[in-house]
């Protein structure tokens, strides 16, 4: 009974999933690893270039930092578009196009003669490309890997931390040897590896395409709009579970990045040296990687519901964020390091789970659009969180208030998560499907298979 439990749970919301996570699924995970590192890992390691840009263009650091802000914003803004395009056309083509665009952005940037060029190329074009890459890749892995979904996501996202150890010295070397223009050109070439990752996605069978269109009236604008909204999965915005989850993740994002930006400055302000502060950050980063993989592996063992684990990690992360300034109040360096390690672990752990929970809520086939919209909505939180924490620091003079507020937002997100339907049941509820009477049949079958420690329900038939 228990051995089939995880399978039943995992496939509870799913449609036609592969029975075993075969080699191809793990090849997909490798593709996710590489593409995530080339999107977010790259974004995080651009600091080397910014030093060169400040000198070459004689601009302020703030003007230069707009480049990466534009890139990140473009990636998140175009995520729903990427999801819609995948729904409408072939995921493989979309990801490969995204890779080409991202690479094109960097190649054009190598010829930039003024700052605006950089905003348009490294920011907008590459960001657009990244938007077409990230959401489709994540959604593909989520949909294709069933048994070890969270581990796959954890492994994929751990690339960001691991690769930053490699990229920083590598970019420094490239800039020194080839100049920043040459280095950007080479980075453009490296970004083309995303195309190879996209090639690993199985092309969509062409026979599927006509099924998406409900009616034959393809020329009228109302059906066009309907098609558009179905590609973008806009009806999701009307569903309460999805909205709740999105709100929770948004609240989480307000506070999630604050330690990343302010931990070093806070450590220095409390009185530790530069090296000690940098070490705290590195320690948090290392435990972050560990947390992603460990949480992924643990979640897939199936002992707990994913949503419960996610709320656990977010609650703990929020708690540790709030404890960070308090631990350094006593002036003890080891306390600060310990709390940072714990925070790093929890924040990494929750990252693996955030996307793995989505199919539970919206169903596997809507995962693409769901993640796209989620990315877009949570991007607003990031824009709010960091300036707010900076403002609090300016007003109060220390980072204590910023950290407390950030941790508070994270805990609020956890509380929002508890309002999800069926939160307090022991097993996952049946994932919603698109309303069609075929699906009603299916869900009946699935409900019959649910192992139950859920409250007795006549339709369940008392479990197996």
């Amino acid at each position, binding site marked *: 009974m228990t051995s089939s439990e995880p399978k039943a749970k995992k496939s509870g919301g799913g449609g036609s999933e592969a029975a075993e996570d075969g080699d191809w699924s793990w090849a997909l995970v490798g593709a996710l690893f590489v593409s995530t590192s080339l999107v977010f890992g790259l974004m995080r390691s651009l600091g080397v270039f910014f030093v060169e840009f400040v000198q070459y263009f004689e601009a302020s650091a703030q003007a230069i930092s707009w480049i990466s802000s534009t890139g990140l914003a473009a990636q998140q803004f175009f995520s729903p578009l990427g999801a819609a395009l995948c729904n409408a056309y072939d995921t493989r083509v979309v990801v490969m196009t995204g890779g080409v665009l991202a690479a094109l952005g960097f190649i054009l940037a190598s010829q930039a003669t003024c700052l605006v060029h950089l905003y348009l190329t490294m920011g907008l074009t590459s960001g657009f490309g990244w938007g077409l890459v990230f959401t489709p890749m994540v959604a593909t892995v989520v949909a294709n890997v069933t048994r070890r979904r969270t581990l796959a996501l954890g492994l994929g996202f751990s690339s960001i931390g691991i690769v930053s150890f490699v990229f920083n010295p590598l970019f420094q070397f490239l800039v020194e*040897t*080839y*100049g920043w223009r040459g280095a950007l050109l080479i980075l*453009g070439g490296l970004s083309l*590896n995303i*195309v190879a990752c996209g090639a690993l996605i199985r092309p969509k069978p062409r026979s*599927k395409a006509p099924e998406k269109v409900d009616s034959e009236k393809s020329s009228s604008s109302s059906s066009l709009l309907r098609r558009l909204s179905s590609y973008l999965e806009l009806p999701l915005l009307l569903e309460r579970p999805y909205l709740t989850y999105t709100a929770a993740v948004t609240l989480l994002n307000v506070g999630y990045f604050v330690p990343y930006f302010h931990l070093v400055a806070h450590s220095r302000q409390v009185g530790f040296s530069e090296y000690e502060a940098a070490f705290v950050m590195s320690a948090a980063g290392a435990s972050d990687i560990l947390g992603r993989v460990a949480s992924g592996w643990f979640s897939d063992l199936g002992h707990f519901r994913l949503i419960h684990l996610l709320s656990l990690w977010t609650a703990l992360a929020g708690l540790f964020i709030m404890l960070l300034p308090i631990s350094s109040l006593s002036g003890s360096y080891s306390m600060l390091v310990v709390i940072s390690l714990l925070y790093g672990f929890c924040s990494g752990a929750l990252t693996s789970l955030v996307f793995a929970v989505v199919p539970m809520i919206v169903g596997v*086939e809507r995962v*693409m659009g769901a993640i796209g919209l989620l990315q877009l909505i949570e991007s607003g939180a990031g824009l709010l969180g960091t300036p707010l924490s900076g403002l609090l620091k300016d007003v109060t003079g220390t980072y204590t208030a910023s950290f407390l507020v950030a941790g508070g937002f994270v805990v609020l997100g956890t509380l929002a998560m508890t309002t999800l339907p069926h939160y307090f049941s022991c097993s996952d509820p049946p994932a919603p499907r698109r309303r069609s009477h075929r699906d009603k049949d299916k869900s009946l079958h699935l409900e019959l298979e649910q192992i139950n420690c859920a409250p007795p329900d006549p339709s369940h038939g008392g479990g197996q």
Partner: protein
Amino acid sequence: MHPNAAMLAMLLLGNLAVPFASAQNAGFVKSPMSETKLTGDTFELYCDVVGNPTPEIQWWYAEINRADSFKQLWDGARKRRVSINTAYGTNGVSVLGITRLTLEDSGTYECRASNDPRRNDRRQNPAITWIRAQATISVLQKPKIDASDQIILSADTSGKPVTLQCNLTTAHTPHKESFWMKNGREITNTRTDQMNTSHRIIKPRADVSGEYMCVFTFDMAPNANATIEVKAKPDITGHKRSENKNEGENATMYCKSVGYPHPTWTWRKVDGTSYMEIDNSTGRFFIYNRDNYTELYILNLDIETDPGIYECNATNVIGNTAETTILRVRSHLAPLWPFLGVLAEIIILVVIIVVYEKRKRPDDIIIEDDEPVAPMKTNSTNNHKDKNIRQRNTK
């Protein structure tokens, strides 16, 4: 009287009167000022006189309390220690200077000026024809300061504390206080009223070297000082380890040093183990030297001849040090090769993946049930029931 004769008389009188009317008596614009000096010092007295015609200036000297016996001074007097420089323009300006003062130089110095045409007539009383301005110069015995010798900091004395000492042995007036100066600037917290003062340098490094002076101040006399030089080998504190520039750009290499005396700088190009002087036949090399700083500036880098290791060398009496900078010139086409390499790698990967896929499962493109991502948005038909069963079985 005949009107013509009256006019003639007036004319004659007028002519006689004209010299007296336009003649202006001599007057001092600037008079010499009294001073107190120490033996061995130098002093200068200034005298500036107006008058028409321009007055003549003389310098006279009388010992203290011997105001009746003034003697004239001339340029080169007192064994050439006296110098008098006079210039006659619209004004008369004269400067009296006496070097290597002795105690006997004390006395009253007088600047005399006159433009009276009868001034050198013996029958005239000089007191009437000459105007005079006096200044009293007192020469005090210079206090003897016993100062430590110059110190040379070297590698083996580094780390051991160094003490500079000054001892005021003879002073003829009570002294007020003493302090230390380094390179012309007062060192804080060194003021004391001891006659014996010392300055301790706990950790001598190269930047400690310089010109140190202990200064004793007096109530009624000018300051006395003694100089102690602390010399060290120059130490190069700042230089670029490497300079990477593109072809055609300009490169700047610099070296900063600390140490006294200030070094002389030379730049050389290092070729393996041998040194080469920098060949400036192309006129693109510029060197700019200042006390503790030097810069080598190369215009319009040439990828063939310019790359290499450049060495800046700082030399002073004590010793020399050198540091090297590597200059690398990047060609514009250099990054193309790695880029094309990466491009080739990606094309090969994509081809491999697509070919592998086509070979392994050529019919998968049509079979539907291996495609998990495809959303099934249609109304169900009976065709799908088979699939449901199949899926259930594979769970």
